[in-house]
Each structure stands twice: as C-alpha cells, then as structure tokens.
C-alpha cells in the first residue's frame, strides 16, 4: 500500500518537474544519468513523500536512496515493520 502510494508520488513529482516517466523502472538512478535530480529537486521529492506517507527515505534512511527502487524499498521495510 505504502509502496504504491510512493510510486504515485514519484510519478506526480516527475510530472510537476517536467521529467519523463516513460522509461521509469526500479533500477532508474535518481541522480546522474537517470532522473538527474539536483539537491533542490531531491528535496522537493522528499517533502512530497513526507507529506503523503509521513516519512521519507531522504530524511530518515541511513544512506540516501540511489534509485527509484531504493525509495520503494524504504516503504516496503517501513510497512512490514
């Protein structure tokens, strides 16, 4: 459930940021050649996730998520805990 919500937030974020989500997969890197998020965009995604899900991997996880899958995995762990 949380994972699906997170997926929807990411899609919403990409739409707002004018980035394509056509080729999006769990392996898509958030930074660099993937979605090429800069710090402000990553911050925006983190607060959108926090607003919808109450917590977000950019603020709470030990290591910054590197891929779309890392974000989703954070919520899998959270919801099964």
């Amino acid at each position, binding site marked *: 459930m949380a994972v699906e919500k997170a997926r929807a937030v990411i899609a919403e974020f990409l739409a707002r940021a004018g980035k394509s989500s056509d080729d999006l997969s769990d392996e898509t890197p958030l930074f660099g050649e993937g979605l090429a998020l800069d*710090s*402000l965009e990553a*911050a925006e995604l983190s*607060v*959108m996730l926090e607003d919808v899900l109450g917590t977000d991997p950019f603020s709470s996880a030990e290591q910054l998520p590197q891929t779309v899958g890392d974000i989703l995995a954070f919520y899998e762990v959270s919801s099964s805990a």
Partner: protein
Amino acid sequence: MILLLERAAAEAPDHPAVVTGEGTTTYGELRTAARRVAGGLVAQGVTRFAMVEPDATRIVQLLAGAALVGSEPCQYQADMAPAEFAAQAESLGHDVVVTRRTDLEGPFRVIDPDELAGAEPDTRPGPGEAQPLLIRTTGTTGVPKAARHDWSILGRTVATVSPRPQQRWLLAYGPHQFAGLQVIQHVLASRATLVAPFPRQPRDGVDALLTEGVTCVSATPTYWRFLLAEARSRGVALPALEQATLGGEASPADLLEELRATFPGVRVSQVYASTEFGSVASVRDGRPGLDAAVLHGEANPTSHLRVHDGELWVRAGAGMLGYADASTEAADPADADGEWRRTGDLVEVVDGRVLFRGRTSEVINVGGVKVHPLPVEERISALDSVAAARVFGRANRLTGAIVAVEVVPLGGADDADLDRLREQIRDAVADLPRAWQPRSVAFVDSIQTRGDKTVRRVEA
C-alpha cells in the same frame, strides 16, 4: 527571589552580591535594601508596578522586595523612549512606574526607587503564597505581550544549585529578559557575585572580563562572537573562564571550538528556553544542537520538547501561568496543539542530535542561499486565484531548509483548479533563483496570521 536572597544573606552577609558601575553591594546590604523596598511598596499601596531601571543592584532590590510582599513587578528596557513606554504601560495597565528617569510622563505615578529603599523595612518572616512577576516578551512589534510568572515556580530551576561563592557571573543579558533573570537567580542560589556593567554590549563584557575577575558568562552566540572579535581587535588576551553558557540561537560548531580554544578548560553549556516555557533543555557536551534523547517519545514521556514538521514544539516546564492580557491567550490555535506550542525554531534530527536550522519567521537558508520569504509571498499573493499566501522555511536534510508555501485558493477549488493553480504558482516565481522557488505547496482553507511568535527563544 527573596528566599534565595535571604538564604545567601544569612550565610554570607559580607560576600559581594552585585558589582555595577555604581559600586559593590554585599548580600547583607542587598537584603536590608530589599526589605526597605518591601516596606515602601506596602506603605505606598503598590500592588503592581512597572520598572525602568538600568542598575542591577536596584533591580534585584526591587524584585526581591516586591516578592516579599506579593507586589507584581514588570521590567521595561531602561532606555525605552518615553512615548513607547507610555503606550506599552497603558496596554499592560501599569499606573505606577518605579524609575529614576524624569522624562517618563503619562497617566501613571512615578516613584524613585531610592525613595522606596529609604522606607522602614518590612519585617514579615517570609513571602506569602503569591510572588508574581510579569516578563515582557522581547522584540515585539505592535501590541506587547507579557507572561505572568511566579518566583516560587521559577525558583525550581535553581533548586539544586550548590554554593559556589568564588564564581563571578557576567550579566550579558538584559535583566528584563527571561535569560537575564535566570542568571540573577542562579547567582543568588549559588551565593556567587553578579558583575553587571551598563550598557551591556560585548565591549562592556570584554572590559568586565579584563578588570572584574569574571569567571562565568551566559550569553547568546552572537554576543560571544562579538566579544571574541572585540578582544581580537583590541589585541588583548582574555583571562580564563570556568563556565561559558550559550542560548537564544543555534550554537555553531566553529564558535564552540573557538570558545574552547580561547578559554582552555572552560565548561561549555547550551540552554534551550523561552519566556513562556522556562528552561526546557540544556546540554553540556559542547557539541552543536541538543541530544535527540531530550525529545518527547516512548523513551522520554516527560520531555518538554518534540519535533513536528521540522519545527520544534514545546510544552511548559517551569513555565508561565498565562499572559497578562487573558485575551491574548490561545489567540492563535494554529500555534497550539493541546499543551504543545510552536517555537518557530526549525530543527532537523541528524545522527542523534537536534540541530537548529533557523527560524520559521526569518530568512530561509536553502543550502546556503538566503531566501527572503516576502518576494516569494508577494508573487504568489498577486495571482488572481489566490486569496492569501504564507511563505516559510521547512527543514530538510538535503538542503537544510526548503521554501514552503501555504496557499488559500480564491473560492471553492476542485482538484483540476488546484493543478492549474500549482502551475500558475510555478510560473509566478520562475524569475526568482531556483533556491527561492517553493518546493512544498500546500492548499489550505485559511492562514493564521501569526505576527510575532507567541514563543520565543531567550535563554540563560
């Protein structure tokens, strides 16, 4: 206050209590003067009064004497302009002013503090149940607020202080501030000596350190920075300190480092407190921020601090009883949640530390870029479909803070309208640097006009 003074005077009547530009006063002399002030207040029928006085000796006499007989004092800045004083005194209903100034005029009676101190001493054994005082909140614009306190509750914060008569504390805060009163209470409780120059600028502090044998200083980080800079520019070496306390703002790591380098062996403490809620936390490990263990949670259910939406919230510790004007209480439901209140301090929890990231009401620091909320707010408020907007900083691990905005759409808005409005907002701020552009847009029904924060950080 009076109990602390009586105890110190009984144990060390000849020990210097207060050193000011006007001389040194011992604990015995201070107690006698306080009892005379008490007698004078009773004789003149003064049950509450405004004080406009720079001299710390007279201030302590007045506060302690008033506490003995249950009269309610309220300090104003010693250099307040006459017109401003008249307006504020009227708003707080003060019709008696104790001051040596001759330029204060209005519908109030003026009493010279030295006239009170010339009265027959009051000889009652101790204070009654109520030892009230009013503390005006600092720096307010518009209608001033005053928090009602009682010494019997404030005194709890120094109940466990043990005597340290060799300590000499610099009064770097105004004695009308909560933090200044905390320093005074601490000095009386420890039978130490208060060194209180006037004015109370960092350069006066440097003089006091060099000539008055100060061993302990409690001040804001900004004061400390200027004190160290002043000493550097004069080329003087500051004498050793036993205790350095910081409060009122976040304490940056480089400043803590500089203090330790300047004063080898100094004990560094940071205090978090507010006029309304008293001292709520302190740390002594010399690291920036607070230990996250102080936060409210399952492991610490009695804590007075919690983090909500990246902002520090607080509930009363040795706190106030209420505001002087009951109508200002709970005027702002958006700032309250049960017994919890917003502090206006943006924080972030990193590696077990609560780190301060600035104020909600101030400049927003986005990854080192200082963002002023107003230009952002103006652009968004100017949109036809926006009724109101409030821009503020929201703590974020990646950039320290981001720009956030609450928007009240004009008229009822469905989701499609909101999507369009979101785009309009994006376009409206497109000319601003990227860091200035809101990364969090929330649509709300109304915006609470907070004006000045009900909770401020002021500490000892």
